[in-house]
């Protein structure tokens, strides 16, 4: 560890973003998170998907999202049907 608390072996990681407005006593401004590479610089490329695999994965992801969305709607409607309009009338 260095005096600033950074790990020596972690040089590929960029330093945290500094909110300069706070240093000047101004209200905190929204900061943009730095882009952090998922893989350390110089590492092996790992599994690289082919264009066909990428297309298939995207299609599967969309299908899962659509299915989950429809299920959420179904459960919402089923809840209303089973509990009726009194679903919101409950003692606190």
């Amino acid at each position, binding site marked *: 560890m260095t005096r600033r608390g950074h790990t020596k072996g972690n040089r590929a990681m960029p330093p945290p973003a500094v909110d300069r407005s706070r240093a000047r006593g101004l209200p905190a401004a929204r900061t943009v998170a730095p882009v952090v590479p998922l893989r350390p610089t110089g590492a092996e490329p790992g599994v690289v*998907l082919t264009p*066909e*695999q990428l297309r*298939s994965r995207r299609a599967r992801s969309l*299908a899962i999202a659509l299915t989950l969305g429809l299920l959420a709607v*179904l459960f919402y409607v*089923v809840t209303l*049907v089973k509990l009726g309009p009194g679903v919101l009338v409950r003692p606190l």
Partner: protein
Amino acid sequence: MSDVDASLGHVTRSGFTGEMGQGVATPRDFIALLKPRVMSLVVFTALVGLLRAPGDLHPVLGFTALLCIAVGAGAAGALNMWWDADIDAVMARTAGRPIPAGRIAPREALAFGLTLSAFSVGVLGLVVNALAAGLLAFTIFFYVVIYSMWLKRTTPQNIVIGGAAGALPPLVAWAAAADSVSLEPVLLVAIIFFWTPPHFWSLALFRADDYARAGVPMLPVVAGPDQTRLQILLYTLFLVPLAASPAVLGFAGPLYGAVALLCGGLMVTRALRVFRLREGEAAVKAAKGLFGFSILYLFALFATLLAEALMGPVSTGGLW
């Protein structure tokens, strides 16, 4: 039954070990795992059971029950494809399925089937009732364990006994609507149960080579085509009056009785044709004709029951 594959080198009974999924499976492949054509028949027969049952199930809950039954049937189909991937790979009719084709890995199909099974049974139990959920769980278990894992590779009576799994959906749907079972849904189950052997054996007559290559002991492979033709005829002769019995017992109206008798007569005619024509192209054509008509026959029976249910109360006290 691991012997089915020695020459192929990539098929063993312990599990399909050929080319695994390469991450290229699309949603369409996963839908194919659900056997959508079988699922459509399941949904149709279940809809009839749902609409003919007493009780006033809310349409949303009825839709949910049908969805659970459909997904449960699809899950059973996926588990069947997982287990049967080795024999699917050597049969022309099934070689293009997602697992033998290498688009989906067996473990993916297993996880998919188990997840959908648990989900469909759980939701049906929570949303509708425990009886229907229990019957759906039994149906999935019967199809996967009793039929696929045990009977299919060990006895020529595989599709006779295993046919119970395909026959149960109207009973599950009836239980969902009425929270009980009675004679009428049992009759519907019996009709599908006794319809299954003539339907599948007529298919097996012109696909016998496929089944023999895969080592599946279908009746034409084990007992020969002539014995199969006799069994088809006997089952059909039992099926036709059974199919007419709802009208006789007062569960269905005269329209159903007329359709059951008319289509039943045509079914017997086609079964007799299969029984008489035993050689050459004419025999194959007769078997294909019976296979195709058997689907139309079951559809006509259940469509009439559905129409009568939509038209209102049909009980006539029986024709006799």
